[in-house]
């Protein structure tokens, strides 16, 4: 294993810890938005897709990249918008007691 991969493993393990710690504290009320919101985040592969699509290496790569950009973008935009739509509906009682 090279150092670079290993550093990636360090980063992965730490991020997993952060994820576990943060997500376990999300209340059940918000589990559906959590699912769609985190789903949108997994569209981060858009970053890789963009580089491929723009590399100009050959038509093949451009087309693969284009497909990846479209798919990832659906995931990103769709995910964030639908989460926002859901969360928009959550509201406190107008006559809040506490």
């Amino acid at each position: 294993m090279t150092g670079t991969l290993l550093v990636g493993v360090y980063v992965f393990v730490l991020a997993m810890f952060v994820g576990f710690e943060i997500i376990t504290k999300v209340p059940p009320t918000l589990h559906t938005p959590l699912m769609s919101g985190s789903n949108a985040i997994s569209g981060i592969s858009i970053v890789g897709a963009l580089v491929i699509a723009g590399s100009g290496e050959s038509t093949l790569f451009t087309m693969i990249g284009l497909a990846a950009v479209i798919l990832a973008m659906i995931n990103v935009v769709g995910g964030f918008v639908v989460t926002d739509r859901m969360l928009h509906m959550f509201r406190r009682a107008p006559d809040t007691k506490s």
Partner: protein
Amino acid sequence: MPAGTLSTLILLSYLVSAVLFIVGLKRLQSPDTARGGNRLAAIGMLIAIVATLLDRAILDFTWIIAGLVTGGGIGLIMARMVAMTAMPQMVGAFNGFGGAASALVAVSEFLRVSRSTGVFETDHGISIMAGTLIGVITFSGSMIAFGKLQGIVTESAIQSQFIRLLSILLAVGALAGAGYLVVAGANELLYWGLIVFALILGVLVVIPIGGADMPVVIALLNSYSGLAASSAGFVLDNNALIISGALVGASGLILTSIMCRAMNRSLANVLFSAFGVGMETTRAGEEGEKVAIPIDGEDAAMLLGYASQVIFVPGYGLAVAQAQHKVRELADLLTARGVKVKFVVHPVAGRMPGHMNVLLAEANVPYDQLYEPEDVNPDIENVDVAVTIGANDVVNPLARDDASSPIAGMPIIECDRAKTSIVIKRSLSVGYAGIDNPLFYKPNNRMFFGDASVAIQRMIDEVKEL
């Protein structure tokens, strides 16, 4: 695309994105901050995209713009159009797209190596293979899950030894092929074969699972789509992808385990037992012996209108009947009459975690009027009327009383201990878990037969008459 070739500024932007994702998810810990959190995460994504576009490795913007606009447009339309009840399949489809995008990143990296040296550095090769396989399986599995929930794939759930054996063979074959490719160097034909294997594997793994278990599968695929993104991050040596993928991976795993625990079943049981197959049509066998007492709208309205404390227990049927707005209307009517109304939401009521919360939020029920079972159970004797609306398993006393029942140990809302219980559903048939519900035959229970939306409307009309 090793890290060295990206400029510091871009790498720092990625770090900012990752931090925004983390902070955004953290804000999801409270409904008050959740919307802002989602926006922060979206801003993080925007920063990552813009930073990437500034990368000097990008030479040609034509197709990129086309792709961004097309994908963004489709995503926007889907997100705007989808009904709240269709959320599970929507998330399922998005998972699939994310997985496919990650897989395509790995594919193009494979092709790049294959068309230059043809030899993999071991760890780069492993990352590419992992990214490809996980991404493709996520894609085909998600598409099947989507199809099942949407009613497109009507294939009834079958759990045959044959399918299981085939899956194992395919998995072993895919792993062996991937290992061979890493060691022996790029061979495109074999690689395409692997991809086909993975596509079929995804289908075979999800097909045998009962439609009702799909939400668990979707949460699991959510986790996979994260792992696929992480793998793509390893392929590109990009920490932003690794971090974001790991966050999503952790999130999906936790949701999966929460659902399994709330149903008191193991993940293996969900994946391999063909649970919940064809039970929508099963009828309780002992109807003849036990008596379920029906009630009509007028009597129900009398009970409700003159009660001092009422709880509503929504379940999957509320979602099916889209009765959330009606229920809210009824609750408002009763509150106006001085009745104390609470909504009690079970963590696995409905078909995905937090499903009821989203529906009730859509109907403008403030989230601080929602209670959890453990808040209400201790004093449930003081509740005059417990109205169960299209719920079944989550109010089934067997979970508490019968250690041999398939749902034994699952926490329930103990409506049978309320002074009076009213259950609104269309028949005496079973729910998700496929077991009979003794609550229906308790002397203090009344059945209000009918579609939840229609039934509640009837109650509203009658309460107004009081």
